[in-house]
Each structure stands twice: as structure tokens, then as C-alpha cells.
């Protein structure tokens, strides 16, 4: 305790009895002590949790954001025609790690209890699974083809026993036995799709026909209101497709040019990296978005449902070239519900269920005769493409350029926010 007893005349003085003086001095120092220790404790505690709070929230919040789950009370009125996998008793329960708005919730409920956790990009999914080291708690994951070898080499995927999936025979042979997973050792095609754009015609006045037009519009009418897919290959792919470069290029000069352009001439026009601009089309956040065909279709359906005019928005398929991707059902080695997972894959490969799901997500499921089976589904031209169109679709690859693509993507992101 400091007791200042200066007697200089400019300091105000209080004259009180000795007893009172002591009590006053004590009470002042006690209050200061309490207040100070409180402050210090709070500061220390926060300084401590500030940093790890950040990490834990990073790992938890994003992937639970859109987690929805089929109600556990749902009875399994599964309409599986083909006999389901042999083994008898198992809970119809799956923890699935997948993309957003990717399955009809009612269909999932009719099968059983599926809880969904969402990721935005393959890189993110792979990272989280690898980091979990086989204890992420998921039974199934839905990666895009070229990422399957990465997962398999990390020993995360279960080798599929095709005898437990009799409906595998319903899949068109064109979508089986892909280069990244010969003989469907680890995966079964869920559906495939492509990438294009959707724009608000009240803001973007010139028609967008090619990726070059897309870039021009992003730098022009839609500057500051443009979103691109939240994945590195798609961002860079846009540049490659626009410039007639193979988007699986590993050439340094191509990648350098791509970085140069995206960071210095494109980044500042972006509003967001958003893998699902379609679902939120009704919010009116963007004037121009790079979008997967099924998501764009869901967006237009949503606009219709909200009573707005879907003609305000225009969907276009990427040109002169664009992406061909295929997402696949995989069972994780760590899965607790292996039998249930097999049963579900078999269930979804039933043409009837497959079409129900297609109606929801708007992607070609690759079932034999799918186009005829789909009948008069809305915005059919956004699901099924002509042979001439399909010829312009190029599959991606995870190759030596992958790290560089991700690096470019990070730089664009940092630059765009600056």
C-alpha cells in the first residue's frame, strides 16, 4: 500500500480522524486490489482461450453449419425392390460426410437415419478425414473421383464387397470402372455433373456465352457481385477453359500466367467464394456466379417456389470447355455402420430411388436409361446434355499441379479481401 504524504500546497488534502483515515485507505486499496485482480484474471483467461478458441471453432462450426439429419423416428419404409444386402440385423443409421443439398431429405428419411455433415471442397474433405486419422466418426464420404486415390493411399477407404450391392448392376457401364478407381474397388458413382454460370440479367446486360465472357462480366457489370466456386481447381479452371488451356496442365508457364491473371486482374472483382450460390439464389447476393448445374437448377426451382420470376436469371453451360466431375459413394474403413452403408448404396442404386434423388439434386445419376426414367423433370436441359455438349466436358485430375493450384487459390482469396 502506498500512502502518499506530500505536503505540497497544490495537492488537496482531507482532514479526518486517524481511525477513519486508516479505514479509508484500506478500503481504497482493497477495492483496487479486487478490481485489478479481476481484470488481470479476465485478461489472462482470455488471452489463453482466445487462441485455442479460434482453432476449435474452426474445426467444429463450419462442418456442422448445415448438418441436417433424417429424423431418427423415421420408419424404414424402404421401397427397395432388389433384395438388400445379406446380413440381417443392423441399425439403419449412417453418418455421412458430403456436399450440401445433395440428397432428397425425404428419400433419406424413407431409408433410415442419416446424419449429414457438409464440406465445401474436396481439399477440405480430404484434409479433415486425413487429420481425423480414421476416427472422424463418419461412415461414408462422397468425394469427387480424382481425390479417391489420395484417400485410398491414406488407407481411409474400405474395399467394397460388390456382392453386398446387387443393384450395382443398374449403373450404366459408362460410369463404372473409371481411371481413378479401376473396377470400382473403393467407390460407386453417385452422380456426375458439370460447371457453368448463372447470372442476373437485370444487372449483367451482355449475354455470357463463354468463360471469357464470364470473366469480362465479372470485371464489368458484375464487379463486386461475383462469386466463384470455393475450390482451387474450379477457380483456376475458369482461366484455363477461357484461354483454351487443358485444365489439368502441369506446365509452369500456364500456372504462372494463371496466377498472374487471377491475383492481379480478377481477385478484386470478387464478392465471395461460394460453392452453393444456387441454393441461395433467392437471397440475391450475387449478380454472377460460377455454379454446378444441379445447384443452379435448385436455385431456379427455389426462385420459382418463392414466387419470383426465374427468367430473371440465366443459366449457361461452361464453354468452349468445362468440367466433368463425378462424385462417388465411398465407405470409410473406420465406419461403424458398414452394413447400413452397403444397404444404403444398394437402396440409392435402385432406379426408382435414384430418380427421386435426381429430381431433388438435379444431377445425372448414371443409372441405365436414366433420361427416359426421369420423364418430365423440370429444367431437364440442366441435367441431361447433348452428346456435342458432353464432348466439351473435361475430367479433372489431381496431379503435380495440385499444390500450386491451391496456392494460387489462397493468394486470390487473400488479395480479394485486401
Amino acid at each position, binding site marked *: 500500500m502506498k500512502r502518499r504524504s506530500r505536503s505540497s500546497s497544490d495537492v488537496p488534502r482531507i482532514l479526518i480522524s486517524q481511525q477513519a483515515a486508516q479505514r479509508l485507505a484500506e478500503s481504497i486499496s482493497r477495492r483496487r486490489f479486487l*478490481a485489478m485482480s479481476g481484470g488481470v484474471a479476465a485478461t489472462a483467461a482470455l*488471452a489463453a482461450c482466445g487462441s485455442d478458441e479460434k482453432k476449435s471453432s474452426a474445426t467444429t*462450426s463450419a462442418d456442422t453449419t448445415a448438418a441436417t439429419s433424417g429424423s431418427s423416428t423415421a420408419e424404414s419404409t424402404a421401397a427397395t425392390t432388389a433384395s438388400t444386402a445379406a446380413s440381417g440385423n443392423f441399425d439403419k443409421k449412417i453418418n455421412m460426410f458430403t456436399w450440401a443439398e445433395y440428397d432428397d431429405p425425404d428419400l433419406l428419411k424413407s431409408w433410415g437415419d442419416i446424419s449429414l455433415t457438409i464440406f465445401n471442397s474436396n481439399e477440405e474433405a480430404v484434409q479433415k478425414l486425413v487429420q481425423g486419422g480414421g476416427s472422424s466418426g463418419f461412415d461414408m464420404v462422397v468425394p469427387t473421383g480424382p481425390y479417391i486415390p489420395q484417400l485410398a493411399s491414406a488407407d481411409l477407404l474400405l474395399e467394397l464387397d460388390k456382392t453386398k450391392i446387387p443393384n450395382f448392376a443398374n449403373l450404366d457401364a459408362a460410369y463404372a470402372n473409371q481411371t481413378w478407381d479401376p473396377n470400382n474397388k473403393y467407390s460407386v458413382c453417385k452422380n456426375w455433373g458439370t460447371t457453368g454460370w448463372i447470372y442476373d440479367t437485370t444487372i449483367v446486360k451482355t449475354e455470357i456465352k463463354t468463360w471469357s465472357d464470364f470473366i469480362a462480366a465479372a470485371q464489368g457489370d458484375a464487379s463486386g457481385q461475383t462469386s466463384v466456386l470455393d475450390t482451387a481447381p474450379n477457380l483456376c479452371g475458369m482461366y484455363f477453359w477461357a484461354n483454351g488451356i487443358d485444365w489439368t496442365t502441369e506446365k509452369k508457364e500456364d500456372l504462372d500466367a494463371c496466377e498472374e491473371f487471377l491475383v492481379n486482374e480478377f481477385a478484386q472483382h470478387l464478392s465471395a467464394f461460394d460453392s452453393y450460390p444456387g441454393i441461395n439464389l433467392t437471397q440475391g447476393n450475387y449478380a454472377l456466379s460460377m455454379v454446378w448445374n444441379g445447384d443452379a437448377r435448385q436455385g431456379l426451382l427455389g426462385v420459382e417456389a418463392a414466387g419470383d420470376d426465374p427468367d430473371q436469371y440465366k443459366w449457361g453451360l461452361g464453354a468452349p470447355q468445362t468440367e466433368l466431375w463425378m462424385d462417388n459413394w465411398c465407405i470409410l474403413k473406420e465406419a461403424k455402420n458398414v452394413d447400413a452403408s452397403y444397404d444404403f448404396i444398394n437402396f440409392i442404386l435402385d432406379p426408382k430411388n435414384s430418380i427421386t434423388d435426381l429430381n431433388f439434386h438435379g444431377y445425372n445419376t448414371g443409372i441405365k436409361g436414366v433420361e427416359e426414367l426421369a420423364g418430365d423433370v423440370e429444367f431437364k436441359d440442366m441435367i441431361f446434355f447433348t452428346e456435342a455438349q458432353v464432348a466439351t466436358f473435361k475430367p479433372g485430375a489431381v496431379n503435380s499441379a495440385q499444390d500450386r493450384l491451391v496456392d494460387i487459390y489462397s493468394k486470390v482469396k487473400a488479395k480479394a479481401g485486401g
Partner: protein
Amino acid sequence: MTAAIGLPTGPPPKKFKLRAPKFALAVPAIVWYIFLFVIPVGLVIVNSFGSKLQGTPGKVDLSAPSLDRYREVVDGDFSDVLVQTMKTSLLGTLLCLLISLPIAYYLAFKTSSRAKVVVLALLMVPFFTNYLLRTLSWQIVLQPKGFVSNFLQDTHWFTFGQALRDTPIKILKTRTAVQIAIVYNYLPLMIFPLWVALDRVELHLREASKDLGAGRVATFVRVTLPLAMPGIVAGLVLVFVPLSGDYVTAELLGGVKGNMVGRAVADQYFRSQDAASGSAIAVSLIISILVILGVLAAVFWCVRRILAVNRRVTVVSI
């Protein structure tokens, strides 16, 4: 062992007594601290000197430790994100303080004890809702086709803003959105310490100030505020530190323009699969926070020092 008064003195009972050392009570806290803070942060610091092991998802190559990742943070565009984050945090903290002060003052001095319970309960209610949901609700409020935007366009109250009437509000996916939501999210963290601090300022002292001739403003500035200063400082720290590391708000509302360091770190880890860069950014954030807190503390200390010279009171005993 000393004999206390009133207790029988004599040899202690022969029964063997197991006595844990006093610090035993602190063991859970120490374990928590080591495993959940020291080790993870240590790993982050170690990783920040490595580099990404090419071709693998998220592995760090530590064979050639270097400061390259930090160089990238400083030279690259991440420094912009860092600066923007600090600006957002400081402004957010200041706004929180300005908004909280009247509320806390009202709570501490102008409400009856019964009303106080109600007001405090109302302040607590948002905490019953998930943080994520509270932030998501801003998406609904701020979206260009949301009810606020529609309302502003439909009503013609804002004669000054022709543009506002004709075009939807474009706040979502900008730094403004993040700023607004962040102030909203962290406001209670400021109000509570302020209220506690103000509440502890005894009425007698304020009365005495008035008796001695100080007006309302002088009493507030020269008595109430200095006495509440520790609470204000606690509130500032309580808001500033977690706000600087906020991730959710930027993720949900920020788009690319409203990026925050917390999200940049998450992006590096999960999207870019680059734990080394992510770690370097995280450490840079921690350093920035410490530097800013240090500067603020120094400024505070100087101000107090200067003020103290003019406010010195000598207690003289007779």
C-alpha cells in the same frame, strides 16, 4: 501443526493421515492448461517454421526450419487481412464500449433492483441461442432481398438516398456486415463487466462528489469513470481478444471482402491443406494481439500517470 485454542493439546493421533500437497487442487487446471493450451500452441509455433510437404494433405515438413512462412505473411496479401482484422477488431471494440457504456450506466444507477433482474435477463437471453444461429440471422436481415432491404425500398422515408430506394442494400458479404454482426455478438461481453464495475462504485462516493460541488458530468468523469476503469479495461480486453480471432462471423457474412484472420487460418488448414502457413498466420495473429494490448496498456498507464498528478489526494491523520 500448532494447537489451536480450545482444542485439546496432546500428541497427534497416530492414525496415518494422507495429505495431498496443496497444489493438488490446481492439478486439473494445470493439466488442462498444458494439454489444451501449451502443447497445441507449441505445436502451432513449431509448425509455423516448417513448410508444406508437397503432395500430401496437410503434412508439415520440418526438416529445414525457416522463417519463410512469416516472410510470406508479411510480404504477401495476408498482411492486408491482418491489418483489416485489427482495424475491424479495434473499431468493433470501440463501438461496443460506446454502446455499452450508457446501457451499463442505466443498469447500475437508473433501474430499480427488480427492473435490473428483467434487464439482465433480457441481456442474457441471446446467449441461450447458438452463436452460429445468431450470426446466421444477420444473413436473413442483411440479404439484398431480405425484409430490411425490401422495407427500405418500399417506404420512401429516405428522401436523401435515391440510390437506397432504387437498389437493394448490398451489405451482406462485405466488411460492414462483419462489423455490424461482430458488435452485436460481443456486446454482452462488454456490458457485463462495465455493469459490474459501475455497480461497485458506491453511491456514497458519488454523493460525496456532488456534496463537494461537482456537477453531474464532473462526477461521472472524475469519480464514477475512474473508479470503473478496471472494469472498462477488463471489458475492452474481453471483447478485443476473442473478436480478433473470430471465424464464424467472417465465414458466414464476410464473403471475400470481409475476411478475418481467423478464417484465413481455417482456410489455410482446411481448404489449402497448408498447416505451416496456417500456423504462421495464427502466430502472427497472437503476436499482433499482444502488441496491440501492450500498446494500449502503455497508453493507459501514461494517461493515468498524467492524470494522477492532478488528482492526488493526501490522506492526513491527526
